[in-house]
């Protein structure tokens, strides 16, 4: 009976969604969205403050926002303040996990399988490659798909590989905590510097350069690398909390 009631509720919800999507100007049909009538067109043209004209890859200079990847331009430049809040949410959740599972932890959780020699050595070799891929993705966030969030998560998954391949291994959690605090503080300090010198929070003070170069887009690669470090160390801390327990 309860399941039937839940089924009816869900069906009514689905019917309401489908009906409200039908013939609605705000939600056009799948594949027929008109980007030029939306606010996104201003982000694509980089014309929020003034219209720079045509943007050609590898030639346009001194845009209001430099990255070639438009999603990065939104995440780390136009809406950077949102991203600061979002990183804070992740920080609070990792703090909550540490509070719930923390305490005096000494020992690794004992698993049923014990890795052999080949697995240990092989995963040490893979660890470097995965770590480098994560750092590469974080550094090239303004040119290619990816950026700080997947880069940081990839750094954390390389730590996860080490944890799985060696049942004695424990990362230096103090180092991670210091790295996390450093990255978070540096993000806020960059924002405050922009506020003092440029007039508003997270103002892009450095030169934007030519769109498409590695050293372009001003502070955006720096901010994205900091986000990557922060996300990576937070998720590594969460993994360590899940894989340790109190003991001798």
């Amino acid at each position, binding site marked *: 009976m309860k399941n039937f009631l839940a089924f009816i509720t869900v069906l009514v919800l689905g019917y309401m969604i489908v009906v409200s999507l039908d013939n609605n100007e705000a939600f056009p049909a799948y594949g027929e*969205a008109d980007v030029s009538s939306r606010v996104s067109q201003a982000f694509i043209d980089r014309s929020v403050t003034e219209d720079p004209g045509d943007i050609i890859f590898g030639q346009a200079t001194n845009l209001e926002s430099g990255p070639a990847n438009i999603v990065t331009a939104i995440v780390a430049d136009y809406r950077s303040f949102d991203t600061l809040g979002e990183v804070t949410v992740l920080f609070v959740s990792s703090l909550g996990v540490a509070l719930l599972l923390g305490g005096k932890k000494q020992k690794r959780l004992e698993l049923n399988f014990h890795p052999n020699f080949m697995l240990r050595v092989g995963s040490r070799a893979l660890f470097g490659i995965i770590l480098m891929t994560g750092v590469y993705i974080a550094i090239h966030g303004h040119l290619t798909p990816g950026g700080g969030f997947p880069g940081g998560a990839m750094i954390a998954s390389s730590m996860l590989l080490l944890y799985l391949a060696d049942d004695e291994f424990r990362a230096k959690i103090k180092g991670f905590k210091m790295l996390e605090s450093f990255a978070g503080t540096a993000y806020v300090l960059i924002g405050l510097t922009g506020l003092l010198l440029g007039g508003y929070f997270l103002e892009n003070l450095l030169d934007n350069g030519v769109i498409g170069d590695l050293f372009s887009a001003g502070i955006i690669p720096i901010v994205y690398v900091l986000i990557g470090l922060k*996300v990576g160390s937070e998720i590594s801390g969460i993994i360590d909390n899940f894989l340790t327990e109190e003991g001798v």
Partner: protein
Amino acid sequence: MLQYAAIAMLMLGLYGLLTQRNIIKIIVSINILEIGLNLFIVSVGYVEGGIAPILTSDFNNNGLVFVDPLPSALVLTAIVIGVGTTALGLALAKNIYQKYGTFEIDEMGEE
């Protein structure tokens, strides 16, 4: 088609959230709801024949037809918040298991 699949997944996630009595299953349902919602938000910005919103040496000017980049940016942050909430929920589940010895909600409270 993908948009309707996203709506159906959203409904399935809500159904699981309402009917399941196991903590792990509830967190799995929340994850399914989240994936469905992310797919739906991205599908709102899809343009037929558009290209991914990245300037490269092949697609090199802003006059081309791009897919809407704003839903992508929103979903990018939503996924990372999702892993944070999932980790917090699982930490709570682990503590509940240590206290009651079960994941089933109905079997708790008779310690």
